[in-house]
């Protein structure tokens, strides 16, 4: 490896050829500020348009200041990162950015968690010397995401996520010069576009330009209504990330505190989406085995591979972009919706209350869940199975608003029956987890044998597209996994073109799976956080006594008491769905 010698702020350093000034400086404890730059190291996601010009530094011999994020170190370079020329330029550029930015920080959804705000503070901006016209755009509220692009600083992170990573292609830089901004085509509303509400744009937005639709007040109102029984379900990925909002180390599991907090908030029953994840495995796993058996017996019409359908961003994606393949995914509803459906039938019956008097709130790492629970097909006479989907971030806010000292809470346990789950349900929160959970059950059901080892390491990891073959007692079952919709697209195109011979494929829209969802605490570009959450999820799995969905006693009870057997008529009614061709649903206002 060729090494380069240079000095940064009079410190002599040696770095590998190809290293950027930004990375080189970090090795000697110099943190050059950045704004548009984003690098998710473990996922190989990079955004460096060199547009914000905050990271400019002085390189001796160069006429202009150089952006550290994209300038490669060269031999003998002499760099100064904080002399008066650099500081003046950096502060002036910051003032310029702020001069075209609303100053409603006090009431901004991003206040306290805004990269622009923190940077302005770090740079010591106390006055805006340059003021003038500001660029204004229409505000756009969709079922899941709010765009207030007056606050857009053209960092292009969302555009990169939407196009390069997710290949959804809803967002693009539009217009030119002062009026340029990132927006959907014709600056129309997101709900008129092919947006999947995966929320990855929100996850990377450094300002308040992209935020989630906030349902916390609706939840507070429901909790205050004595006529309502309010029950809550919480998704697996939430427990691995919520602690971050309260200053805990990334990867801290807060399951017990989470339950305690929800109880303090006043929910009548605190349940677990993991229970519904186990239920999903029963339905989806049965569907898989059914298709597999039909295939093995020579049925030419059977659709293989089967694709998972737990991820609402993914469902939106194929309905818009691959509608002709909508008969391939499993018809099983997502755990959130299975939970809502069972809660408002089975559990409501048990309580002897009408579904109208039950409010189901879900705590989700995901913004697409907000859209999913509002879908018409998940309503009975207009009453939704799940009333409100609240993100991890919103929950943290709700806890803070209710004066709960989260860190000092004692652990508490989920209620029964819908709070009991297995390790298989927990791992739904990470890429590869759904298919691993399905494999644990499908293997035992198909072969009739007991698994020696429930962990399938070959299904785990962070690579974008993975494939593995699992030996079902002599029958090699080929499994594909993709996370990130761009990778899903690749896999789907291979399936469509007959280039892939998988039996089952798991897809999650967000990089890393649900732990990297659009509703999670913001990672601010630190991908080690995603890794820590993943590790936490697997730890939770290991700590469970029961780790296979079909062994969950409450699932067994549910089938005995209510559903009959997996994929029965009743479960089809309550736990399965159908998909729509939305390719033509794009309207032009």
């Amino acid at each position: 490896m060729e090494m380069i010698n240079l000095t940064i702020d009079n410190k002599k350093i040696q770095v590998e050829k190809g290293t950027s000034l930004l990375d080189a400086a970090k090795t000697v404890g110099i943190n050059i500020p950045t704004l548009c730059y984003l690098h998710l190291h473990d996922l190989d996601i990079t955004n460096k348009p060199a547009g914000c010009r905050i990271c400019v530094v002085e390189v001796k011999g160069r006429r202009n200041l150089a952006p550290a994020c994209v300038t490669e170190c060269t031999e003998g370079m002499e760099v100064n990162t904080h002399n008066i020329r650099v500081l003046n330029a950096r502060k002036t550029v910051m003032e310029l950015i702020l001069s075209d930015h609303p100053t409603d920080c006090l009431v901004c959804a991003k206040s306290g968690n805004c990269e622009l705000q923190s940077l302005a503070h770090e740079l010591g901006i106390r006055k805006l010397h340059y003021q003038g016209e500001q660029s204004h755009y229409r505000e756009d509220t969709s079922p899941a995401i709010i765009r207030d692009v007056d606050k857009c600083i053209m960092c292009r992170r969302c555009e990169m996520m939407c196009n390069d990573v997710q290949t959804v292609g809803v967002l693009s830089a539009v217009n030119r010069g002062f009026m340029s901004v990132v927006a959907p085509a014709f600056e129309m509303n997101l709900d008129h576009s092919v947006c999947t509400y995966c929320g990855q744009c929100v996850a990377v937005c450094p300002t308040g330009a992209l935020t989630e639709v906030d349902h916390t007040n609706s939840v507070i109102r429901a909790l205050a209504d004595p006529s309502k029984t309010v029950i809550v379900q919480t998704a697996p990925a939430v427990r691995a990330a919520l602690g971050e909002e309260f200053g805990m180390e990334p990867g801290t599991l807060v399951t017990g505190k989470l339950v305690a907090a929800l109880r303090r908030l006043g929910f009548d029953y605190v349940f677990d989406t993991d229970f519904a994840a186990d239920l999903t495995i029963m339905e989806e796993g049965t569907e898989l085995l059914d298709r597999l058996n039909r295939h093995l017996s020579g049925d030419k019409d059977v659709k293989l591979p089967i694709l998972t359908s737990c991820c609402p961003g993914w469902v939106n994606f194929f309905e818009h972009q691959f509608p002709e393949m909508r008969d391939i995914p499993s018809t099983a509803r997502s755990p959130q919706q299975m939970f809502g459906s069972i809660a408002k039938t089975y559990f409501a019956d048990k309580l002897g209350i009408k579904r109208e008097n039950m409010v189901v709130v879900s705590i989700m790492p995901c913004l697409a869940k907000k859209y999913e629970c509002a879908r018409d097909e998940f309503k009975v006479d207009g009453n939704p199975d799940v009333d409100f989907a609240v993100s991890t971030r919103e929950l943290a806010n709700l806890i803070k608003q209710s004066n709960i000292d989260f860190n000092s809470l004692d652990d508490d346990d989920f209620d029964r029956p819908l709070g009991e789950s297995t390790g298989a349900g927990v791992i739904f929160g990470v890429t590869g987890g759904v298919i691993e959970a399905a494999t644990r059950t499908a293997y035992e059901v198909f072969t009739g044998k007991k698994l020696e080892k429930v962990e399938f390491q070959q299904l785990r990891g962070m690579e974008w597209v993975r494939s593995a073959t699992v030996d079902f007692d002599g029958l090699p079952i080929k499994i594909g996994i993709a996370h990130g919709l761009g990778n899903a697209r690749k896999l789907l195109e291979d399936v469509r073109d007959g280039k892939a011979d998988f039996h089952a494929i798991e897809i999650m829209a967000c990089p890393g799976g649900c732990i990297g969802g659009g509703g999670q605490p913001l990672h601010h570009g630190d991908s080690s956080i995603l890794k820590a959450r993943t590790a936490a999820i697997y730890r939770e799995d290991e700590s469970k006594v029961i780790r296979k969905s079909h062994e969950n006693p409450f699932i067994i009870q549910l089938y005995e008491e209510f559903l009959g057997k997996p994929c029965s008529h009743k479960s089809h009614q309550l736990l399965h769905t159908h998909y729509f061709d939305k390719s033509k649903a794009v309207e032009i206002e």
Partner: protein
Amino acid sequence: MATFKMHLLVCGGTGCRASESENLFHNLRTGIIQKGLENDVQVLTTGCFGFCEKGPIVKVLPDNTFYTMVKPEDAGEIIEEHIIKGRKVQRLLYVNPLTSEKVEDSKHMGFYRKQLRIALRNCGFIDPENIDEYIARDGYAALGTCLTEMTPEQVIELMKKSGLRGRGGGGFPTGLKWEITRASKADQKYVVCNADEGDPGAFMDRSILEGDPHSVIEAMAICGYCIEATKGLVYIRAEYPLAIERLKIAIKQAREYGLLGKDILGTGFDFDIELRYGAGAFVCGEETALIHSMEGFRGEPTVKPPFPSVSGYNGKPTNVNNVETFANVPVIINRGAEWFASIGTEKSKGTKVFALAGKINNVGLIEVPMGITLREVIYEIGGGIKEGKKFKAVQTGGPSGGCLTEKHLDTPIDYDNLIAAGSMMGSGGMIVMDEDDCMVSIAKFYLDFTVEESCGKCAPCRIGNKRLNEILEKICKGEGSMEDIALLRNLSNVVKDTSLCGLGQTSPNPVLSTLDNFYDEYLAHVNERKCPSGQCKALLQYWIEPENCVGCTACARNCPVNAIAGERKGVHIIDQATCIKCGACMEKCKFNAVFIK
């Protein structure tokens, strides 16, 4: 051209066509046919003569008669008098504005005397739609020489020796650029001709493409041979329909003659050219933005390195040169590097084409040797300032350049001197300003342009130029302060220092150079709330001179806002607070009583 006794060359440039030169051409040709002279006299449409001020132009060869402002209906007289009777049509001859003498031979016109036409060598001499005429003037000889007698390395060496530098503004040595692109290894490389001329007030490249398209085609093929590219692309403004048309014709003819396509001149060298259209974005003159535009994206620049010579169009090594640079290449090959290097100054060789415009008598396209002074250009070629007014400044380099003043008039023009003087060569716009021009307004004019043309990608250019423009507007309105001037200077420096591409890195130049050279004008706007040239409307005041006012009431009756009070036959007074400065009073006053202060 040998078989004809006489030639009538009619300018077919955009400027002259706008003044009905096509009809003129038609009338001349039908007239010649009617008289049965079609075997003796050839009527030709040529490219731009450069002397756009007096278009349409008709030149008669061999006697070099230069008719100006010729109307279609003048065709009959030219044929009857000049062609048949041998008497020049006196009323159409060019009149020297200084001596009021009629000039019979164009060689004696000041406009042409100091020019040296290399890039424009064929403009105005040949029919650009006929490849034979180009070939007759050594066309494609250079390509032949290169392909059959020289190695690519030898050609590059010759280009380096000639000292030719990029004429698009940057001034990068052309031979060196070719050498770097040649050194990049790839299965496919591209030659790109940047014809996205976008400076407001510049039309050099368009004139070359309209007047001599083959010179560019030939040079691109030579460049392709040197860098091992088989494909050329011309990125041309869609607003240049005539240039596009002529380029298309030329490419087609070159293909028919085997000078483009497979196995050129039987040497096994393949090269062909396609057109790509710009769509109205000045920033696409920047080479990375241009490449993104050719790839079907928004024309946003990216950071260099990587340079296009390493990773350009479709990620392949790409050599980008502008039209004028290419137009020089064949002559350099034909006449040798030493010849070319003998012209110009130490570090700037050859000539430069300028679009001379503004408050000058001879507006037009000129080509001068490097090292000529501004004084020679303005007073000898340009014929001095219009209406005998006083010279104030000359702006070179378009929105990226600066204003030069009286004290720079004797500076030899070359790349380095212009930069040292606070401006730049740019692509060749040269706008002359007189005493009536307000330099703060001029700076604002350029900033208006940059604000509109900034791509929006980087913050300093997107927002900084907007703020610069707003401060200038404030000053022009008389609302500026000394603090604003300080802010203006700081912001200009920061925008230059931090912007991503050449557009933002140079856009504050008009501000900085006017601040440097016309600081007094800024002070007058700020401290005295006055515009010394009377251009800033907000700072004007209309007053009535009591001695001249007869009390006719015409001004008061025509004032749209009733700002004028006064009795009939009494002196009238304008209420400054109400006045909207429309100028109606001044227009209506028959006694010169209204004046501006």
